[in-house]
């Protein structure tokens, strides 16, 4: 297998977070220098390795706090691994928490431009795509109103429209399919399917196993930071549901 056919590769990746960082003040730093207070660490991910080919689509399942979002943040480059290596070939569009940089006092159009530029879309492309983004979002005339007048659904639709217009090689999606009404959701599914059939790589985190079954060939099951199962979407979902079933029986 040539290296070029790899879209995403994780090599023994671990991520550790320090706990108690809500108290990032000088006093705590001084006490920890003198060893008076030990900060606890938390393994968000432990020794994860996998490889995703170009054009493959992978779902990630696991319970809350299993490390799914951390894994996507590693792909998008927001988080740097403490141990191991993350290799990403191609342009990533990460629909993590949507709407980076959105500010309630700016208008929809101003937020659109800011968000698009942060995602790495060039000035010229934003100009060309502007009307198409607005149209996809279905915001209409509200685009020139301040964002604080938008409903949550409208904000998410705007954010999603910007992100989906990035023309990525790799699309990373975190739970955002719960965005908007049914009509908008089906538009999003269509868009994601189009990207798939155009040979783009896809990575999705979702609690909805049916969404993963619909969109993915392959799935990872992560539990408490560890990779439990890596296989076809159906096998992984079966294993995951079997396990949670036996857990509820135990209770």
């Amino acid at each position, binding site marked *: 297998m040539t290296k070029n056919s790899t879209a995403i590769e994780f090599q023994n990746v671990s991520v550790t977070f320090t706990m108690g960082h809500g108290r990032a003040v000088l006093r705590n*730093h001084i006490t920890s220098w003198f060893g008076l207070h030990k900060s606890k660490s938390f393994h968000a991910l432990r020794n994860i390795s996998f490889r995703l080919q170009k054009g493959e689509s992978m779902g990630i399942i696991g319970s809350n706090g299993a490390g799914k979002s951390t894994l996507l943040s590693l792909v998008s480059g927001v988080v740097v691994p403490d141990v191991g290596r993350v290799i990403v070939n191609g342009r990533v569009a990460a629909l993590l928490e949507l709407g980076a940089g959105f500010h309630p006092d700016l208008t929809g159009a101003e937020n659109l431009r800011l968000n698009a530029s942060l995602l790495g879309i060039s000035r010229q492309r934003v100009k060309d795509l502007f009307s198409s983004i607005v149209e996809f979002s279905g915001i209409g005339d509200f685009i020139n109103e301040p964002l604080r007048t938008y409903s949550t659904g409208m904000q998410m639709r705007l954010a999603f429209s910007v992100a989906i217009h990035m023309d990525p090689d790799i699309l990373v999606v975190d739970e955002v399919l719960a965005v908007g009404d049914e009509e908008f959701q089906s538009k999003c599914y269509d868009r994601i399917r189009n990207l798939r059939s155009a040979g783009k790589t896809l990575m999705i985190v979702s609690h909805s196993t049916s969404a993963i079954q619909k969109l993915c060939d392959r799935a990872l099951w992560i539990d408490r930071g560890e990779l439990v199962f890596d296989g076809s979407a159906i096998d992984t979902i079966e294993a995951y549901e079997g396990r949670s079933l036996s857990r509820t029986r135990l209770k």
Partner: protein
Amino acid sequence: MWGGDYTYVLQNLIIKDFKVRYRNMSLGVFWSLLNPLVMLGVLWFVFTKIFPNNAIQNFPVFVLCGLVPYNFFSVGWVVGTTSLVDNSGLIKRVPVPREIVPIAGVLSQCIHIGIQVCLLLLFLILAGKSISIYWLLLPVLWFFEIIFVCGLALACAALNVYIRDMRYFVESTNTIMFWLVPIFYPFSMIPREFREIYQFNPVAALVLATRNILLDGIAPPETLQIKLVFSSLCVFGAGLAVFHTLKSRFYNYL
């Protein structure tokens, strides 16, 4: 990893800071003028009525030459320092080069300072001062002041992620600097043994150079210019170095 358009992001971040700041003010841009005018009035009262100082002519121009660079330094430094924490949502969501955020914070102050520069020019005209060739030096000297403040902001913004009390340190230092930058006293009143140190402070150096150019109509001494450039570049380099060592764990602390 992030293959975006740096100038476009910078432009949008600056527009955002500026609009957010002014959209919620009924007086809008006039706030930028009110602050130096009030300070000018107070300083004028104290230093012409209470402690009259005959060494100073053209008091309004003299003080504004000090206040404008000082205001840029103090506001830019504070805004830059808190910028990463204020924009934590952005840092945690997009892999945009982190350095852009504090730099945009500092640069967003340029618009606000530009208005104060206009006020200074207005007083210059009222004082009957004419334009000289040395005015061309001003943008260059200002460029280095901006570099200096960016350097400070980069270092302090990165530290502020780990030590949230950083902002109070910056604010206290600003109060001290108000007295240690020659805003309302001339260089000639500073005792000889301290003059050397004064010139290594880029803000003080800019104030002195601006007075040379605008009030005295002469070129600032070359040694002063060299010191301004030297200390600005050193601070900027140090700021970048601090930022680079600290940035990998921002996500964990924001």
